[in-house]
């Protein structure tokens, strides 16, 4: 046997566990969900095993459409707000002196390591009608009556931005760090204003990181059902809640159909991202 053959056999051996694992737990299980979405509700294990398109037909009912559209709208808004805060933050962070950057990076990582549910619980206390935020504003004399903050769509929106902002900051900052700043300086020397240099040089050059951030924020924001439970007063606002409700009322096929639809949206977003030149490596954040 030649060494080349031996080598490639060795590589195949290295890859084997990952191939197997991926096939069974990712490919088969997701395919299984898609399969369930084409079946009706049944007594045994929740499905009847007969092919039907009824679940997908039901997606057109106004009540489902409304939640789906609302979910997309919230996801899009979250992405835009995360972008407009996270990108400048990432940019400024990357331009800091090394020592200061280390400190800011550290401050960013720590919340990421603390349980996200408990942080959302912190928001819940903050936003209460007689909570710290309202008391503070009242003491300042800015408002007379407590504002209704908690249990609103706005609170859910805030929670989503809060939870996902670091996912925008990291890739942005990484991209800016890699940027060869002499190009920007050259543009400035040639007479470009700071804003023009920023938008014509910096932004295009860091676009991959920026897009990675958008993907990282947009996709999970469709499924964070617990945010809605904890900040939105339990009303059904997100597709994630809808799926959870359907699972609870034992409508697995319909839950699967919605999941398949979300899978499709996710696939479309990633395909779009790849099309404009993004790479999957950039989606690994750190």
């Amino acid at each position, binding site marked *: 046997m030649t060494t080349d053959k031996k080598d490639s056999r060795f590589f195949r051996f290295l890859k084997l566990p990952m191939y197997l694992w991926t096939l069974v737990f990712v490919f088969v299980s997701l395919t299984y969900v898609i399969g369930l979405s084409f079946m009706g509700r049944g007594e045994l294990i929740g499905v009847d095993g007969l092919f039907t398109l009824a679940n997908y037909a039901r997606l057109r009912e106004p009540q489902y459409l409304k939640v789906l559209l609302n979910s997309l709208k919230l996801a899009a808004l979250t992405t835009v707000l995360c972008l407009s805060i996270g990108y400048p933050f990432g940019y400024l962070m990357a331009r800091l002196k090394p020592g200061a950057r280390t400190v800011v990076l550290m401050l960013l990582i720590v919340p990421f390591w603390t349980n996200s549910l408990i942080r959302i619980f912190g928001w819940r206390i903050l936003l*209460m009608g007689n909570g710290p935020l309202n008391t503070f504003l009242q003491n300042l004399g800015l408002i007379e009556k407590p504002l209704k903050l908690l249990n609103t769509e706005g609170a859910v929106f805030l929670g989503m931005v809060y939870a996902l902002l670091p996912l925008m900051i990291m890739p942005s900052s990484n991209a800016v760090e890699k940027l060869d700043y002499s190009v920007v300086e050259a543009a400035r020397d040639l007479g470009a204003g700071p804003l023009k240099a920023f938008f014509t040089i910096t932004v295009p050059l860091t676009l991959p990181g920026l897009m990675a951030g958008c993907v990282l924020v947009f996709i999970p924001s469709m499924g964070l059902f617990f945010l809605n439970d904890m900040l939105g007063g*339990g009303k059904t606002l997100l597709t994630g809640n809808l799926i959870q409700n359907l699972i*609870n009322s034992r409508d697995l096929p319909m839950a699967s159909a919605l999941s398949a639809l979300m899978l499709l949206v996710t696939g479309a977003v990633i395909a779009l991202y790849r099309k404009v030149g993004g790479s999957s490596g950039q989606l690994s954040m750190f």
Partner: protein
Amino acid sequence: MKKNILSLVALLMAMLIVALSTLGLADEAKTLNIISWEGYVDEDTINAFEQETGIDVIWSPMSSIDEMLLKVQQSGGEGYDLILSSDYSLDILRQEGLLQKLDMSKLPNYANLNPIYLGQFYDPANEYVVPYVSGCVLIVVNKALCPIEVTSYADLWSEELRGSVATLDLSRVIIGLTLKSMGYGMNETDPAILAEAKDKLMQLYPNILTFGDNESYTALSGGEASVGLIYASFASLLLQENPDIQVVYPSEGLGFGVDGFVLTSASQNVDNAHLFLDYLMRPEVAAHNAEYQGYTNVNKAAEEFLSDYYWANPAVNIPAESMEGSEIVQNIGEAETLYTDIYTAFKLQ
């Protein structure tokens, strides 16, 4: 470089050792698995029981009755010994054959229970259920904030309450109370009547601020909601902390429920389960838990241990004349899906 790989190997080894050492910890012999809402039996009570018997109580928290039903039905009850949940759900479990009869000879304290809570639809022959507490769904009003006088369920539909009603999140209860506000019973199965109730219920949505026990409690406590449709337990808490909160017994009659323990047929710890149930029916223990939860005590022998505060609490000690016309949510079998569909449509508005 060598150092790097060495430290990596050391780290992996350390992790392996920790992971291995944590695997064989649980002692299977003296355990008792219970599924219910988190903290539904005071942990001091459970600690005392564990001290006394050496049995390790493992509490699986559930966040809703639906979630519990799903989990128990999926596993066939395997892994659970006792289930503490509400009346109609106990009936569903019983009818599906997931429960086993209790051994009354091992439950001498069963005699302590108040007979008016026995022999109910979910357990007509008193074989399966140990009632734990009872409670009503109450209307609470924050006098300082509420613009109208609320005396009935029908008042909840008032235009002036837009966005200010905090309610629990249970399809059967909310639809049941809607039916009551229209003069029907809580357990109607006639599709025509239910369709009528659906139309009525749909109009309630703009008034609702929050769904869910804890969400609604928070909204009432924080002064965001002025009217609540909540369980007695949460009403008790609110009464304690805010003098502006009042309890209203709706003129259409109250909806009430009983939460009780049942034993799964798959239970591996039958004796431990009986020990625990008998312990909970001791008068002092039962009195303590009813007060702790802010629900109505169902244990006759426990009454002498209840405090003055308990007797003065309008959320748990409800005058007999106000209990007239009260109803309990029952298992209605097949028609349940009608309720689920109505509720889904309601919540997806």
